Protein backbone atom coordinates (compact mmCIF):
# COMPACT_ATOMS: atom_id res chain seq x y z
CA UNK A 1 0.00 0.00 0.00
CA UNK A 2 1.42 3.34 -1.02
CA UNK A 3 1.80 5.89 1.75
CA UNK A 4 0.95 9.57 1.90
CA UNK A 5 2.90 11.47 -0.74
CA UNK A 6 3.98 15.08 -0.41
CA UNK A 7 5.87 17.44 -2.65
CA UNK A 8 8.12 19.24 -2.71
CA UNK A 9 10.25 17.89 0.12
CA UNK A 10 12.10 21.16 0.56
CA UNK A 11 11.35 24.74 -0.39
CA UNK A 12 13.21 27.98 0.22
CA UNK A 13 11.48 31.27 -0.51
CA UNK A 14 11.82 34.90 0.43
CA UNK A 15 9.30 36.59 2.67
CA UNK A 16 6.26 37.98 0.90
CA UNK A 17 6.53 35.32 -1.80
CA UNK A 18 3.90 32.63 -2.24
CA UNK A 19 4.31 28.88 -2.01
CA UNK A 20 2.15 25.79 -2.48
CA UNK A 21 2.43 22.29 -1.12
CA UNK A 22 0.80 19.21 -2.53
CA UNK A 23 -0.45 16.08 -0.79
CA UNK A 24 -1.79 12.80 -2.12
CA UNK A 25 -3.37 10.71 0.64
CA UNK A 26 -3.61 6.96 0.89
CA UNK A 27 -6.16 5.63 -1.56
CA UNK A 28 -9.59 5.35 0.01
CA UNK A 29 -8.85 7.61 2.96
CA UNK A 30 -11.68 10.07 3.35
CA UNK A 31 -10.02 12.36 5.86
CA UNK A 32 -7.00 14.53 5.17
CA UNK A 33 -5.10 16.73 7.59
CA UNK A 34 -2.50 19.46 7.23
CA UNK A 35 -0.19 20.14 10.15
CA UNK A 36 2.46 22.77 10.79
CA UNK A 37 5.47 21.63 12.81
CA UNK A 38 7.77 24.40 13.93
CA UNK A 39 11.25 23.34 15.02
CA UNK A 40 11.20 22.06 18.58
CA UNK A 41 7.42 21.81 18.75
CA UNK A 42 4.79 19.20 18.13
CA UNK A 43 2.66 19.28 15.00
CA UNK A 44 -0.22 21.73 15.08
CA UNK A 45 -3.37 20.97 13.12
CA UNK A 46 -4.06 23.61 10.48
CA UNK A 47 -7.00 22.12 8.63
CA UNK A 48 -8.95 18.89 8.40
CA UNK A 49 -10.94 17.75 5.37
CA UNK A 50 -13.61 15.08 5.22
CA UNK A 51 -13.80 14.15 1.55
CA UNK A 52 -13.73 17.61 -0.07
CA UNK A 53 -15.40 19.48 2.79
CA UNK A 54 -13.66 21.34 5.60
CA UNK A 55 -14.25 19.83 9.06
CA UNK A 56 -11.98 22.09 11.09
CA UNK A 57 -9.88 25.07 10.06
CA UNK A 58 -9.96 26.93 13.35
CA UNK A 59 -6.16 27.18 13.56
CA UNK A 60 -5.55 28.10 9.95
CA UNK A 61 -4.32 31.71 9.53
CA UNK A 62 -6.86 32.48 6.87
CA UNK A 63 -5.40 35.87 5.98
CA UNK A 64 -2.45 34.13 4.35
CA UNK A 65 -3.08 30.39 4.31
CA UNK A 66 -5.55 28.57 2.12
CA UNK A 67 -6.19 24.92 1.37
CA UNK A 68 -8.37 22.96 -0.93
CA UNK A 69 -9.11 19.35 -1.61
CA UNK A 70 -10.59 18.98 -5.03
CA UNK A 71 -12.61 15.84 -5.77
CA UNK A 72 -11.91 14.58 -2.27
CA UNK A 73 -8.49 13.21 -3.10
CA UNK A 74 -5.39 15.39 -3.51
CA UNK A 75 -4.96 18.54 -1.51
CA UNK A 76 -3.00 21.75 -1.86
CA UNK A 77 -1.93 24.09 0.93
CA UNK A 78 -0.93 27.61 -0.08
CA UNK A 79 0.76 30.44 1.76
CA UNK A 80 0.52 33.92 0.31
CA UNK A 81 2.39 36.03 1.31
CA UNK A 82 4.86 34.07 3.40
CA UNK A 83 6.34 35.43 6.62
CA UNK A 84 9.53 34.45 8.40
CA UNK A 85 7.52 32.70 11.12
CA UNK A 86 6.03 30.34 8.54
CA UNK A 87 9.34 28.48 8.41
CA UNK A 88 8.37 24.98 9.48
CA UNK A 89 7.72 21.46 8.28
CA UNK A 90 4.27 21.03 6.79
CA UNK A 91 2.92 17.56 7.32
CA UNK A 92 0.03 15.95 5.53
CA UNK A 93 -1.79 12.99 7.04
CA UNK A 94 -4.78 10.89 6.10
CA UNK A 95 -7.10 8.50 7.86
CA UNK A 96 -9.87 6.18 6.86
CA UNK A 97 -12.58 8.28 8.44
CA UNK A 98 -12.76 11.35 10.64
CA UNK A 99 -12.66 9.65 13.99
CA UNK A 100 -10.13 9.89 16.75
CA UNK A 101 -10.02 6.12 16.93
CA UNK A 102 -8.60 5.79 13.46
CA UNK A 103 -4.90 6.02 12.90
CA UNK A 104 -3.49 8.92 10.97
CA UNK A 105 -0.83 8.08 8.42
CA UNK A 106 1.71 10.82 7.86
CA UNK A 107 3.67 11.85 4.82
CA UNK A 108 7.36 12.79 4.99
CA UNK A 109 6.57 16.50 5.13
CA UNK A 110 7.70 19.60 3.28
CA UNK A 111 10.37 21.66 4.97
CA UNK A 112 9.78 25.35 4.24
CA UNK A 113 12.43 27.98 4.89
CA UNK A 114 11.41 31.62 4.56
CA UNK A 115 14.32 34.06 4.34
Amino acid at each position, binding site marked *: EAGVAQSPRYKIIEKRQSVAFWCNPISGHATLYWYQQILGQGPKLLIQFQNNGVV*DDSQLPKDRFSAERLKGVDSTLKIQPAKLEDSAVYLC*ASSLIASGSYEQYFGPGTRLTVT
Partner: protein
Amino acid sequence: AQSVTQPDIHITVSEGASLELRCNYSYGATPYLFWYVQSPGQGLQLLLKYFSGDTLVQGIKGFEAEFKRSQSSFNLRKPSVHWSDAAEYFCALAGNQFYFGTGTSLTVIP
Protein backbone atom coordinates in the same frame (compact mmCIF):
# COMPACT_ATOMS: atom_id res chain seq x y z
CA ALA B 1 -9.93 22.42 27.24
CA GLN B 2 -7.69 19.66 26.04
CA SER B 3 -3.93 19.53 26.14
CA VAL B 4 -0.98 17.19 26.13
CA THR B 5 2.15 17.74 28.18
CA GLN B 6 5.45 15.98 27.75
CA PRO B 7 7.56 17.17 30.68
CA ASP B 8 10.89 15.90 29.39
CA ILE B 9 12.34 17.80 26.45
CA HIS B 10 15.34 15.53 26.12
CA ILE B 11 16.32 12.15 27.59
CA THR B 12 19.58 10.25 27.27
CA VAL B 13 19.76 6.54 28.01
CA SER B 14 22.38 3.86 27.54
CA GLU B 15 21.78 1.13 25.04
CA GLY B 16 20.16 -1.83 26.77
CA ALA B 17 18.73 0.28 29.56
CA SER B 18 15.04 0.67 30.19
CA LEU B 19 13.12 3.72 29.01
CA GLU B 20 10.08 5.61 30.21
CA LEU B 21 8.77 8.72 28.47
CA ARG B 22 6.14 10.72 30.30
CA CYS B 23 2.90 12.07 28.91
CA ASN B 24 0.14 13.86 30.79
CA TYR B 25 -3.13 14.91 29.27
CA SER B 26 -6.10 17.07 30.03
CA TYR B 27 -9.49 16.18 28.61
CA GLY B 28 -13.00 16.10 29.99
CA ALA B 29 -13.96 12.71 28.66
CA THR B 30 -12.25 9.41 27.91
CA PRO B 31 -9.49 10.28 25.49
CA TYR B 32 -8.04 8.47 22.56
CA LEU B 33 -4.28 8.54 23.16
CA PHE B 34 -1.38 7.84 20.85
CA TRP B 35 2.37 7.67 20.79
CA TYR B 36 4.20 8.55 17.58
CA VAL B 37 7.90 8.39 16.73
CA GLN B 38 9.64 10.71 14.30
CA SER B 39 13.11 9.95 13.00
CA PRO B 40 15.15 12.74 11.39
CA GLY B 41 13.72 13.66 8.01
CA GLN B 42 10.89 11.15 8.37
CA GLY B 43 7.19 11.43 8.90
CA LEU B 44 5.52 10.36 12.10
CA GLN B 45 4.98 6.67 12.69
CA LEU B 46 2.38 5.34 15.08
CA LEU B 47 3.84 3.24 17.89
CA LEU B 48 0.63 2.44 19.75
CA LYS B 49 -2.80 3.73 20.64
CA TYR B 50 -5.29 3.53 23.49
CA PHE B 51 -9.03 3.72 23.00
CA SER B 52 -10.56 1.72 25.84
CA GLY B 53 -10.27 -1.58 27.65
CA ASP B 54 -6.97 -2.92 28.85
CA THR B 55 -4.93 -0.03 30.21
CA LEU B 56 -1.63 -1.60 29.19
CA VAL B 57 -1.19 -1.27 25.46
CA GLN B 58 1.40 -3.07 23.38
CA GLY B 59 2.86 -1.44 20.31
CA ILE B 60 5.44 -1.95 17.64
CA LYS B 61 9.19 -2.16 18.15
CA GLY B 62 8.79 -3.53 21.68
CA PHE B 63 7.11 -0.43 23.10
CA GLU B 64 4.23 -0.41 25.53
CA ALA B 65 2.25 2.28 27.29
CA GLU B 66 0.04 2.36 30.33
CA PHE B 67 -3.06 4.50 30.63
CA LYS B 68 -3.68 5.77 34.16
CA ARG B 69 -6.90 7.72 34.41
CA SER B 70 -6.28 8.76 38.03
CA GLN B 71 -3.00 10.38 37.05
CA SER B 72 -4.10 11.57 33.59
CA SER B 73 -1.01 9.90 32.22
CA PHE B 74 -0.08 7.71 29.29
CA ASN B 75 3.62 6.92 29.72
CA LEU B 76 5.61 5.06 27.09
CA ARG B 77 8.02 2.31 28.13
CA LYS B 78 10.53 -0.03 26.64
CA PRO B 79 12.48 -2.58 28.70
CA SER B 80 15.68 -2.45 26.65
CA VAL B 81 16.54 0.42 24.34
CA HIS B 82 18.36 -0.08 21.04
CA TRP B 83 20.50 2.54 19.32
CA SER B 84 17.94 2.69 16.52
CA ASP B 85 15.35 4.00 18.99
CA ALA B 86 17.02 7.41 19.00
CA ALA B 87 14.34 9.75 17.67
CA GLU B 88 11.70 12.27 18.67
CA TYR B 89 8.66 10.87 20.45
CA PHE B 90 5.28 12.55 20.49
CA CYS B 91 2.28 11.84 22.64
CA ALA B 92 -1.06 12.83 21.09
CA LEU B 93 -4.67 13.08 22.13
CA ALA B 94 -7.74 12.88 19.95
CA GLY B 95 -10.63 14.72 21.47
CA ASN B 96 -12.42 17.54 19.72
CA GLN B 97 -9.22 17.93 17.78
CA PHE B 98 -5.99 16.05 17.42
CA TYR B 99 -3.39 17.55 19.81
CA PHE B 100 0.28 16.68 19.94
CA GLY B 101 2.65 17.23 22.81
CA THR B 102 5.88 19.13 22.27
CA GLY B 103 7.88 15.95 22.02
CA THR B 104 10.74 14.23 23.84
CA SER B 105 14.04 13.81 22.07
CA LEU B 106 15.73 10.50 22.88
CA THR B 107 19.47 10.01 22.63
CA VAL B 108 20.90 6.52 23.02
CA ILE B 109 24.53 6.20 24.02
CA PRO B 110 26.58 3.03 23.51
